[in-house]
């Protein structure tokens, strides 16, 4: 279907793609893995017509293929499904599918043939197993359902090659299963797919062949059975990571720093009680929608709680606004760092100092102590090992996901928090950066902070935490101690006793 041969690309004299060659046959799914910056996006931009290769050739169905624009790629039958979906929430499913080429009644009248549009939409929705009316507004669909609409959109364009870029990051386990089932069906219809993901488990499960990119070159290109998780990881980073999770050098104490007692909020969480100790890393597991992030928001004060008490160092904070809780030592790394954790347009320095502006202000006059702020920013950015290439004045949006997350961490570290709530701290981050984030979390704990770590990656919790609580449907269903850490038990708890296939 698509063949890449010896693709090369340089930016400002730096080679970002070197001799990249691989092939996806009809009906084949090829996984593309690599750390951030390995060249995946550049390659996809070349495929999509946004960039031109300096050298090399692409063939689509045997014909030379050199797209000059994204329109060319689309006309050639290539559809991209991005991490951030490109659907219009205020339009109906049908309108989203046909936005560019609405079926018309007669060519000389500008009116949309709505019956035909509905019928074609219904047929496409059946193919992706989505039982909604074509007139349903997309804003009423869940993330998983929207993903399926994206696939229907690709089918509407009669795409023969679909590129999925991190399609599962915002899906629940069940939605992911559903997506994979649909992908299997597409494969039977002869549609080829390129699957780009950091979830190596999914890549191993789904793909026929896997291409490992490292520093712009193909580090390995073999059928999937040749790979294991460990081998993939070591190929990606180029050295064997004997231990993905760094060794822990400190221990949890038995001094309680945060106590959540009987917290309930109708429709959100119910009767939540737990204690977090100084120096402890407490994991929170559960499916998406189990109420984990909602619990974090309540503890941090972004959402109210109807019943119960939250105590920080034995002082009740349940009625305090978030700003006051920050001042008393609470920090919150949100799940969606781009929308909630960072001002993307602002500089690194501005972002880092945002939560500590009060401490960096000269008390007498009330303006910012700039030399002090600069010194603090430099101290903190060294501590989080922010890439040396980034200048303090640089806008945060220009950084990679891993470095952005470090900026968020730096922001909170400036306040020296006593309790750190981390919601999916490594989502969408490459493995090297993950490792450094893990190290930082250990350091936080070693300095005596209590860490509440929410994650959908069970391995991550097992590798990092002193204890794990499992939430399901707004309640805590299990508290698991390290000696009982077991992937299956955690999943079972989260999924309601063996509902997992």
């Amino acid at each position, binding site marked *: 279907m698509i063949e890449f041969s010896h693709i090369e690309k340089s930016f400002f004299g730096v080679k970002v793609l070197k001799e990249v060659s691989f092939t996806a046959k009809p009906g084949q799914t090829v996984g593309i893995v690599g750390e951030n910056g390995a060249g995946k996006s550049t390659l996809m931009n070349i495929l999509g017509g946004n960039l031109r290769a300096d050298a090399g050739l692409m063939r689509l169905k045997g014909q030379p293929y050199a797209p000059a624009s994204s329109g060319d790629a689309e006309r050639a039958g290539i559809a991209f499904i991005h991490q951030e979906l490109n659907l219009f929430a205020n339009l109906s499913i049908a309108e989203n599918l046909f*936005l560019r080429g609405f079926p018309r009644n007669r060519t000389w009248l500008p009116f949309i043939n709505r019956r035909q549009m509905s019928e074609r939409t219904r047929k496409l929705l059946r193919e992706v197993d989505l039982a909604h009316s074509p007139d349903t507004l997309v804003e*009423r669909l869940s993330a998983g359902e929207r993903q399926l609409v994206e696939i229907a959109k690709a089918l509407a364009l009669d795409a023969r090659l679909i590129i999925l870029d991190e399609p599962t990051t915002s899906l629940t386990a069940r939605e992911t299963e559903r997506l994979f089932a649909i992908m299997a069906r597409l494969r039977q219809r002869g549609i080829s797919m390129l699957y780009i993901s950091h979830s190596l488990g999914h890549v191993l499960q789904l793909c026929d062949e896997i291409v490992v990119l490292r520093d712009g070159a193909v580090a390995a290109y073999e059928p999937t059975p040749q790979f294991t998780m460990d081998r993939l990881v070591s190929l990606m980073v180029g050295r064997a990571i004997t231990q993905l999770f760094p060794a822990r050098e400190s221990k949890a104490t038995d001094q309680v720093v945060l106590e959540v007692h009987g917290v309930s909020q109708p429709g959100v969480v119910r009767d939540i009680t737990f204690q977090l100790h100084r120096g402890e890393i407490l994991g929170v597991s559960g499916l998406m929608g189990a109420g984990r992030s909602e619990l974090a928001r309540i503890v941090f004060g972004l959402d109210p709680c109807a019943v119960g008490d939250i105590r920080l160092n034995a002082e009740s904070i349940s009625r305090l606004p978030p700003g006051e809780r920050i001042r008393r030592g609470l920090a919150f790394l949100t799940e969606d760092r781009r929308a909630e954790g960072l001002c993307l347009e602002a500089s690194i320095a501005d972002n880092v100092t945002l939560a500590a502006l009060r401490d960096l202000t000269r008390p007498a006059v009330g303006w910012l102590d700039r030399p002090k702020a600069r010194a603090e920013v430099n101290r903190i950015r060294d501590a989080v090992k922010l890439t040396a290439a980034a200048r303090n004045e640089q806008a945060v949006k220009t950084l990679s996901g891993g470095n952005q997350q470090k900026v968020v961490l730096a922001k909170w570290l400036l306040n020296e928090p006593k309790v750190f709530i981390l919601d999916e701290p490594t989502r969408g981050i490459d493995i090297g950066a993950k490792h450094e984030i893990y190290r930082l979390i250990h350091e936080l704990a070693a300095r005596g902070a209590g860490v509440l770590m929410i994650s959908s990656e069970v391995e991550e919790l097992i590798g990092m935490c002193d204890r794990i609580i499992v939430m399901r449907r707004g309640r805590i269903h299990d508290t698991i101690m390290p000696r009982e850490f077991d992937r299956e038990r955690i999943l079972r708890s989260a999924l309601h006793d063996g509902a997992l296939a």
Partner: protein
Amino acid sequence: MTSAPATPPGLRLLNQASLILFALVLLVFGVMSPAFFSGENALNILTQASSTGILAVGMTFVLLTAGVDLSVGSIMFVAAAVGGKLALGGVPLFAVLAVMLGIGLLYGALNALFITRLAIMAFIVTLATRYFGRGLGLRITETRAMNLPESFYELGAARILGVPLPVLVFAAVVLAAHLILTRTPFGRQIYAVGGDLEAARKAGIRTRVILFSVYAICGLCAAGAGIVALSQAPAVSPGFGNNREFMAIAAAVLGGTSLFGGRGAVFPGTVLGAVLIQTIENGLNILNVNPYLYPLITSAVIFVAVLLDAVRNRVLSLAARRKVFVEADPA
């Protein structure tokens, strides 16, 4: 086999807010004055609402793209000033009307040019052209009021099958706008552009063409609103059309069109909003309320409109959040 997820109940109520408000207003005035509920008064309200209504229809196009046009009152003025001069100079009526509509279209296109080509914010561009138009109009009229020939008045007084011509024009504009917005690719792409400009560009929609068109349409509607206003009171005063943009925005937003773009409708939305505003004014008139209170009441109406929009937006963003299905207590 097909199903739709339930709409949040609060949202359903909000979507009907202008209808409820309308019923409330009718009830209050009806109770206070029996004259209010006559067929003739209903036609009267519609006739009076037609100018603002047409203006608000044009404004709806712009608001749907998350833009705004503050210059529509000035467009009315410039078109009326030029039209008045021509009419007094003996140019036949149909030619005068055509020139006026042309001026509206041109003025809107000028706004569009600045907004799409020079990428200046619509708010700033139209604020500037609002003052420009006011100044231009004053220069053309030499700041004097112009009384127009009888032909204008006859236009406003004409009736077809008992329905006043302004109401018919209003209805025609609404029908055309409604069909364009709901039934044509162009219309749906306006909603897409207003929903997410960047995504619309990525989806291959020619966003500049869309944006250009909505300002041109808005200018055309403004000139149309000017003609209808002149047909009811055939005089061009220096204050003609002044501040009408705010009534138009209020009417559209009262009718459920969002200032944030991507949401709203001409029918029933904007029509309802325009008629509601006019009904309030008409009712106050019948009840002999002190005219100095009108601005206070108008401001309250605008406030309610914007408040509704903000609340609706908040409910929508809350509804977009993930749901937790909390488990009940074990029995």
